[in-house]
């Protein structure tokens, strides 16, 4: 067998010669051939290169080695295979990893370099990366390159991959307020995210319906605001576990505490925080957004966000700021008086801005950066120049592509979510719609395009809980993952379909309850317990 050299364009056509090139997401540069090597499960090892900055004892990689060993070969003990007729096939006994810069104990960040190079040829089986995060991505790719013959022998083809993400922020939003998601569900999602090279878990922790985040400064928030304070909460320990589990997979945890709207559940535990709504001259007994006119509100936010800033180590916090309903503020005479005093006239956007600006100052003082929903930008709130604006509205006030143009024109960094609301379902292969989006297809200068740092697939929880989360998420979110990782020229839907169908079977094999793309079957089907 002669190793043939194929470049990307050729590969698009030729990738399906064997299972070896069914990668997801597709790497930036790949050369591969039919020439292959055997791998024996009982002797194969992941090894640190002697010159690697990370060595045994590096938790991120030590644990990843164990994980990928199990994913590749299962936990069964393997007998030495009797090599029959395959004597001339070379065996690869180890993958050698060289990480250039130390940083095993650190957290991934927006600036983390995820590049890696994977070389599998006669001389080498070698993974080179700048950081441990890049090594994690390379290990995932390596695990997808290994295939198994019908007789059960493991193989890997001669391959050269140089890979890096197109966007540094590749996120998935889960909503644990509309429905509570048990801790194992979140951890399993982090695993599946790593298989897709997602690197941000946007945790929409609290909202109107419930407040499951257990605050030590304000324990009443969960005691009164959660669905059930005994079972439907995330304790400090749970949160720590999520953050560490994510870190070990190179995933950041971006916590969202959405205000001033979407806060009904906050009001249960903190009296006086929400605006009392009036009907006529009497309080109606209902409550609206956070009350922006009281000093006590900001004292509360000061303390609360001090806690949040230390609990969540990521540099960024998500402060929400979406869908503020002005009706309640309008009805309240004290708010009206405040508006007059401040000279806001009847423009409640100015009141919203007043609140948000005060909040942003608080969070800035804690040395944090922040992400906000697009309304904060649309309502012309004065924000720090390094603020990240997340675009979620498809058509209003303008199309999302136009919105990206406006945000980047104003010099802000942007995240795209509008076309990727995975909670919205329809009949058929809707992943193709998610896949077709190109985040940079708006009119703007190269400098503007450089301000789009990535995107997020959002799984809002109105109709989603642990009964249907996984099949609704996978492999549909995979389409978004590839769009954010792979080169912009990787757009062919047939090429994607074949790889994604293969990848979803691989997800099933790994225990992820990923739903089918079309008719067909997998060698290993999902089996409920």
């Amino acid at each position, binding site marked *: 067998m002669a190793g043939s050299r194929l470049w990307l364009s050729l590969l698009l056509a030729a990738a399906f010669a064997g299972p070896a090139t069914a990668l997801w997401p597709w790497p930036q540069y790949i050369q591969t051939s039919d020439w292959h090597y055997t791998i024996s499960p009982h002797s194969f090892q992941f090894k640190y290169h002697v010159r690697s900055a990370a060595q045994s004892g590096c938790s991120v990689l030590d644990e990843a080695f164990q994980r990928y060993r199990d994913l590749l070969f299962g936990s069964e003990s393997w007998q030495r295979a009797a090599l029959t007729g395959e004597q001339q096939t070379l065996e690869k006994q180890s993958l050698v990893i060289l990480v250039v810069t130390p940083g095993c104990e650190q957290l991934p960040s927006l600036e983390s370099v995820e590049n890696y190079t994977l070389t599998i040829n006669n001389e080498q089986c070698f993974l080179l990366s700048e950081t441990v995060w890049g090594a994690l991505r390379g290990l995932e790719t390596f695990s997808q390159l290994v295939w198994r013959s019908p007789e059960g022998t493991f193989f890997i083809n001669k391959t050269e991959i140089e890979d890096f993400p197109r966007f540094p922020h590749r996120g998935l939003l889960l909503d644990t307020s*509309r*429905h509570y998601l048990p801790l194992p569900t979140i951890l399993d999602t982090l695993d599946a995210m790593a298989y897709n090279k997602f690197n941000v878990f946007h945790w929409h922790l609290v909202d109107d*319906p419930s407040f499951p985040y257990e605050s030590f400064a304000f324990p009443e928030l969960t005691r009164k605001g959660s669905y059930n304070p005994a*079972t439907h909460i995330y304790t400090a320990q749970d949160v720590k576990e999520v953050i560490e589990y994510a870190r070990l997979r190179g995933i950041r945890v971006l916590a969202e505490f959405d205000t001033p709207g979407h806060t009904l559940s906050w009001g249960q535990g903190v009296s006086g925080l929400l605006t009392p709504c009036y009907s006529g001259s009497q309080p109606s007994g209902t409550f609206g957004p956070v009350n922006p006119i009281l000093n006590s509100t900001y004292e509360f936010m000061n303390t609360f966000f001090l806690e949040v800033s230390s609990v969540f180590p990521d540099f960024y916090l998500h402060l929400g700021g979406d869908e503020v309903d002005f009706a309640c503020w309008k009805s309240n005479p004290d708010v009206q008086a405040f508006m007059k005093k401040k000279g806001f006239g009847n423009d409640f956007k100015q009141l919203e801005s007043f609140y948000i600006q005060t909040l942003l100052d608080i969070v800035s003082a804690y040395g944090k950066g922040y992400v906000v929903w697009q309304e904060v930008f649309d309502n012309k709130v004065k924000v720090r120049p390094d603020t990240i604006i997340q675009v979620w509205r498809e058509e209003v006030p303008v199309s999302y592509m136009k919105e990206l143009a406006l945000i980047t024109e104003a010099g802000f960094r942007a995240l795209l979510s509008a076309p990727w609301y995975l909670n919205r379902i329809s*009949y058929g292969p809707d992943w193709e719609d998610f896949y077709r989006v190109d985040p940079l297809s708006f009119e703007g200068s190269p400098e503007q395009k450089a301000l789009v740092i990535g995107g997020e697939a959002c799984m809002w929880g*109105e109709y989603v809980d642990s*009964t249907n989360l996984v099949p609704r998420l996978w492999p549909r979110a995979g389409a978004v993952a590839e769009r954010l990782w792979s080169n912009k020229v990787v757009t062919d839907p047939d090429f994607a379909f074949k790889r994604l169908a293969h990848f979803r079977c691989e997800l*099933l094999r790994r225990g992820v309850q990923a739903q*089918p793309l079309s008719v*067909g079957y997998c060698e290993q089907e999902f089996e409920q317990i």
Partner: protein
Amino acid sequence: MELCGLALPRLPGLLAALALLAAQVPRAFATRGPALWPLPLSVQMAPRVLHLSPDDFHIANDPSSKASSSCTILQEAFRRYHNYIFGDHLLYHLPAKFHVKADIQQLLVSVVRDSECEMYPSVSSDESYSLVVKEPVALLKANRVWGVLRGLETFSQLIYQDAYGTFTVNESTISDSPRFPHRGILIDTARHFLSVKTILRTLDAMAFNKFNVLHWHIVDDQSFPYQSTTFPELSNKGSYSLSHVYTPNEVREVIEYARLRGIRVIPEFDSPGHTQSWGKGQEGLLTPCYRSYQPEVSGPINPTLNTTYSFLYKLFKEISWVFPDQFIHLGGDEVEYDCWESNPNIQTFMKQKGFGTDFSKLESFYIQKLLNIISTLKKGSIVWQEVFDNNAKLQSGTVVQVWKEQNYAKELSSITAAGFPVIISAPWYLDRISYGQDWRLYYAVEPLNFSGTQEQKQLVIGGEACLWGEYVDATNLSPRLWPRASAIGERLWSRQDVRSLDDAYRRLTVHRCRMVRRGIAAEPLFTGYCDNVLK
């Protein structure tokens, strides 16, 4: 916004509501309190609350019962329902567990007529029952075991845990029977294979919703997972893989599991279209399609050959004894004519038979021969609506299933006007998903809302929720089916005037949590929570 957890009813309000409702249909009481689904024909519920204790409660045969104590259906059901009622109580972490005096220690079950314990359920099975819950013994009476099964489900739904975790039931009297005798779920094991375990789990959930027919669309173009003893090559070559087949033992297991839950298993072997997978293991069965005078691919079953009908006779003879139900579904939908048109031998046959160029006549020719085979085998036939639409001559008693959504009311009129029994599926294609609470649309359907006489309406024997398999396999079947199919379950069981969406929403929210507790991954209707969480 439904924050059920934040709005538990206060006790006086609950009692007042109960008293007020004693003479009417019951309503749901947020998360606590009974929530019956589907709603029984008549419910009288008193405010008086009785307690039960898991260690001191038995379901047993009443001495007057005609059922033998060795009746498997009943023995297994008694054990099952004891588990459903109490089995999960350890999962609750409630603050205090008081020792309660049990007010009711027994549910006695009495079968009034011949029990039919060893039989299979049928379209004419009597599912009616009456239930009296009072101190110290509750009594469930039914003519047959089938009614007992429905009554046990209702009884289990009456019991709830109060705020202290005590098992509680209101004194009540219920009499119940279904509005339609045929209440089915269609599963498709050809587009995607479904493991036996997935099918059994679906049968469990069907029983929770008083469905009584599993319409097993077992084979189709994509794969032939049914392992035939007469023609083993059909699945050897036509299944996705040799591990994607149903062995005779597995088929028997499904049928018996269904029988124990009062559920019929109606197999569908769809022909002459939808048969690509049959061709792999049975040479010469499918029509060779011609392109430029050369046979290339294959089309529907070849209706012109004698060998076709001798094959069908043998296959359906096997099917008729493997599946004990009186009915076999013969399919007959979506036959594409272009392949037949392309084939010169078929053209000659058409000429010879005087069919001209009307291929629907050829289709009818095929179907009629198949229907004759089925009646020789002493079975009844169900067909998709095209068979009727194409004017095939049908024997009386042939059941027609309506699936095309456009003008389905008109279709119901025509079919019943011609005197044929009919099953409705058109508005209930659950594989078609959309965002939000589509169960409301399924619930709002009124099956008898078509123009026709009283006699015509009586020909509507029921309906089926169809979960076709193009995009469905074991990964997403349960949350896609439940509780959306429950809406259809109630529409087919409960009285015509049970239509309030608000009341249905409240009861269904509780019912879905009950299904989750019993191990069914039923998806949420909307924002909220269950006391328990699916692990």
